[in-house]
């Protein structure tokens, strides 16, 4: 069961990664939620031992390869929010979906703040306000995304 659940986890992470790097027209790209971050957050909350901080680190490293100016940037941001998610996983899990979405919104903002600061320090400042749009869409899509992930985890099946 253990290996099986881990396999499912990697499968969802891979799908989320593909959704993240799928080429989209610019206007759609702005509102595209950070699927991979949402997936990693889901696993950190619901399977904090299997997923969690290590998963966040490696998923972040993958994101860096695809779209990071510096290796380790997304990794650090993801490690930070997965740490919070793992620490508070029991409290977050017991909340209704709407409140979870709010927490996810806060986590995504924190994630983006970290990216924003690292971007600035490393000399790739992107100050467009559009970079913050995905935090909102990410929070909005959280309830259905969590339901789909829960289904994939075999909870409802």
């Amino acid at each position, binding site marked *: 069961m253990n290996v099986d659940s881990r396999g499912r986890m990697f499968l969802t992470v891979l799908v989320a990664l593909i959704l993240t790097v799928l*080429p989209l027209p610019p206007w759609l*790209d702005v509102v595209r939620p950070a699927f991979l971050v949402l997936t990693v957050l889901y696993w950190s909350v619901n399977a904090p031992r299997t997923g969690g*901080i290590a998963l966040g680190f490696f998923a972040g490293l993958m994101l860096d390869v695809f779209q990071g100016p510096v290796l380790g940037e997304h*990794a*650090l941001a993801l*490690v930070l929010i997965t740490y919070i998610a793992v620490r508070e996983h029991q409290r977050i899990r017991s909340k209704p979906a709407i409140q979870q979405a709010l927490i996810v919104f806060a986590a995504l903002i924190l994630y983006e703040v970290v990216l924003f600061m690292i971007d600035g320090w*490393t000399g790739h400042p992107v100050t467009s306000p559009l970079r913050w749009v995905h935090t909102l869409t990410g929070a909005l899509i959280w309830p259905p995304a969590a339901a789909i992930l829960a289904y994939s985890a075999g909870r409802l099946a």
Partner: protein
Amino acid sequence: MAAFGTAAGRPLGRGGSPGFRFTLYALLSVIVMYLDQRQHYLEQVRFVLQAAAYPVQLAVNSPPAAWRWIRESLQTRDALRSENARLRSSERDLELRAMRYEALARENGELRGLREALPPVADRWLPAEVVNIQLSSLRQRLLLNRGAANGVFKGQAVLDDKGLIGQTTHVGPWSAEVILITDPEHAVPVRIERTGLRTIAVGAADTTSLALPYLPANADIKSGDLLVTSGLGGVFPEGYPVARVTEVHRDAVQPLAQVRAAPLAHIDSDSEVMLVWFRADHPAAPAPVADAAHELRVGNAALQPQPAPPKPRPVSAAASPPAATHAPPANAAVPSRPSTPPSQATPPPGTPPPGTPPPGTPPPGAPSQGAPSQPPSPQATAATPTEGASALPPESAPPPPAAPAPASSSPAEPDRGQP
């Protein structure tokens, strides 16, 4: 749930509390960032990771590629016939122009006082297919299906048939990432073709425009002006078309003019682009390739030794000035060191002991010693990202040493001869 038995599964960072693991991985990512940003130790790692990422990128691109293929295969006979006719006429057109080109090139060579017309600056072309596209307002990159295996290197110019597209930023074994000239992080040194005025065109965050933010309000520029690469900056050769000015806005209270230009290349619709290798010893080549590329990666530690004036001309008359400017970057970045080479040149008997160590350490023949000791040190550091691939194109590797060699070895000879 899945909470049991995982601790034994993975030793690294699994055992400790979340706080411990957080510290571990946060530290790890900070170290990775530091190494990547400041030290550039991670080119190899990036190379491997890029290879691992390539299948995903290919898979992601397959729906658009399939759509393109279907559309192409369903094209009607009429459409194909008309396209064929159009291509044939344009080919005739180009042939006529090429005929003229030969004559013009010869005439140009005569006007420049050179015995024979120079070969074109572009040495080798490689068509590459666009595998993945990222076009957002924050980041505009292409992924090409050519990599180090094809000899692609970091900082290589990418063109299409109309104009400049961008340059490669990360090179994997089979893929290369290209930053577009319209990316907000990218800047191209350009020249206004009509007036010769040089400036910089930076990406303006959408695929259809470039901004020229550094022109004074009274600059002679107007809508319709053609911008070509100026050859400065060490990446793009001189004279390639970049963009056409679309909009010039002069505000009485602003000291700078606000100028927009539209790139000539079909940046958002290209599915095939060209990777170009340039002759390093050509006058129109990007001036000091090695130093500029080095600077791009390392940052400018010391501005003074930038060898902009001595273009590596094959003529031996320009031998002595390049020697003075080539020496400082080669010897050391230490500010005290660069003062020795000029003094070493003037009083030969007194100074050789302190001056000789840098050139003297490899004692082999005098003509060859200039090549290994002096120019390679900037070149070797600049070439590391591609050398890691051990696939530097044979065409591009030899020319750089060949160009400065006559310049630096010839002044070294009299130095040895005088004492």
